[in-house]
């Protein structure tokens, strides 16, 4: 049975108000709290280490898998390995996410290592939300590592969201794309207080006509610190674009390091990075509509992180 705190965390990270439809695996305080496999999606525990294997049959369409993790016990630290085997011609949605509620004084940490093996012409939408809460002095720590292998003609859209509450995070994402594969990443991040967030992407465009679009929008408030690294490697006729757009406030610091490597004459790579405070004329415009300065700022940030 899930506690009320755990239910609240589930709502924050997966918009889940009750047990989800379709396949799911809920992990709470280091143990399985619910699992459901379907005819096309099989979830099984790993035998050699903590974690699960998710196998999606070729041709599975319009199905979803939810694999949320919630931690409400102070001092709990875990590393979990989840592997996703998505068959050819699938069209599926995978919702992961981690919520930590730490009211104690010991650090709580969840490090999720996710590996995707995506079959030919398959289409995957992946949503990963991080959320932290709790009044304790113990930190809420998440260090996710994601590895993506995109087969010929396949595509993946990744939505990576971390809005408030996570004290320390180091996210590492590596993707390898075969012929005609496409990867779209949309990262949204908001840090505040003394939080530190590090996010790194390495995308290898190995196959002809592969393409990637890696976009990060972030807001750093108060004394928080963010580092964003994005590296795109073009090893064939390919298209790559990476963009980092950050709003900086108060005494926060943001570092953006876009990196491009072209190893093929026909790889076209572009990077853009912009860091700045909220433009004064944006605040003024919204104030002329009757908003206070604080309300204007909130609207601008909410829109930016949409």
């Amino acid at each position, binding site marked *: 049975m899930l506690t009320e705190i755990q239910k609240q965390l589930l709502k924050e990270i997966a918009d889940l108000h009750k047990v989800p439809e379709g396949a799911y695996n809920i992990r709470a305080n280091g143990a399985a709290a619910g699992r459901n496999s379907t005819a096309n999606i099989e979830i099984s525990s790993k035998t050699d280490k903590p974690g699960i294997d998710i196998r999606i049959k070729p041709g599975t369409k319009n199905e979803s898998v939810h694999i949320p993790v919630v931690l409400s016990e102070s001092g709990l630290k875990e590393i979990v390995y989840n592997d996703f085997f998505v068959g050819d011609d699938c069209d599926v949605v995978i919702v992961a996410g981690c919520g930590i509620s730490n009211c104690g004084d010991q650090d709580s940490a969840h490090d999720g290592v996710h590996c995707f093996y995506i079959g030919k012409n398959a289409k995957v939408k992946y949503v990963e939300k991080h959320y932290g809460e709790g009044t304790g002095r113990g930190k809420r720590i998440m260090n996710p590592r994601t590895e993506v292998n995109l087969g010929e003609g396949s595509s993946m859209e990744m939505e990576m969201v971390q809005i408030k509450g996570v004290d320390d995070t180091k996210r590492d994402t590596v993707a390898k794309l075969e012929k005609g594969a496409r990867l779209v990443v949309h990262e949204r991040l908001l840090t505040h207080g003394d939080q530190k967030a590090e996010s790194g992407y390495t995308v290898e465009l190995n196959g002809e006509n592969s393409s990637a679009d890696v976009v990060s929008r972030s807001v750093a408030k108060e004394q928080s610190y963010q580092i964003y690294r994005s590296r795109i490697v073009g090893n064939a006729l390919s298209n790559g674009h990476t963009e980092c757009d950050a709003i900086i406030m108060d005494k926060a610091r943001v570092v953006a390091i876009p990196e491009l490597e072209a190893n093929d004459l026909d790889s076209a790579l572009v990077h853009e990075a912009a860091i700045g405070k909220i*433009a004064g004329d944006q605040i003024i415009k919204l*104030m*002329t509509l009757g908003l206070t300065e604080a309300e204007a700022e909130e609207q601008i940030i909410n*829109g*930016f992180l*949409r």
Partner: protein
Amino acid sequence: MLELKNLCFGVESEDSTKEIIRDVSFTVPDEKFVVITGPNGGGKSTLARLIMGIEKPSAGRIYLNGEDITELGITERAKLGISFALQQPVRFKGIHVVDLLRLASGNQKLSVSDACEYLSAVGLCARDYINREVNASLSGGEMKRIEIATVLARGTTLSVFDEPEAGIDLWSFQSLIQVFENMQKRSHASILIISHQERILEIADSIILIADGQVRGQGSKEEMLPELMKSTVPVTCNRILEGGVKNAD
């Protein structure tokens, strides 16, 4: 009714103060359409910013419906009933046109169809725009029309427009003028427009000529238009030729 009394505004540099607005007084009565015109750099936009509260005057007072609003901030003036369409509309990443219209109307539940009416009124095909981001993907002309739509959505008693015609190349001028005429039909609504366009000057109830930060002339269009045409003040009046402007939609 808006009243400006002996308004002054200066910008301080290292060793001197540059006077941008010098002792300006005028009134925008209820239900009147007043156009401010004059050469570039004469202080017109600064006046609009002083009225909205974006800049604070160094001397003089501003009254709205008899209330002294000189010390009030932008938000308070907006709530009292002043709207302002900026000369250069501001772009926002992630904020949609419908969001802006909802904020402007003060009604977060403003329906999409009601929001669309404001866009249609400014000559935009509403369905195509309502969910667009107010970002760099919109052209200057589109931004100007959306800016005017936000003022329509506010529905306040005083609407100030800073060169609303600038950048609107393809939009039938007649529609723009119709927008202002319709606004004026609302009871007690007064409109203050900064413009160089003769067609806008022609529909004014009164015209104020501002040059070198001062009021150089003021009167009805019948009095002012012939003056402006022969004025020694280098006033730019761009004549819009009939048929020279095409309908966009």
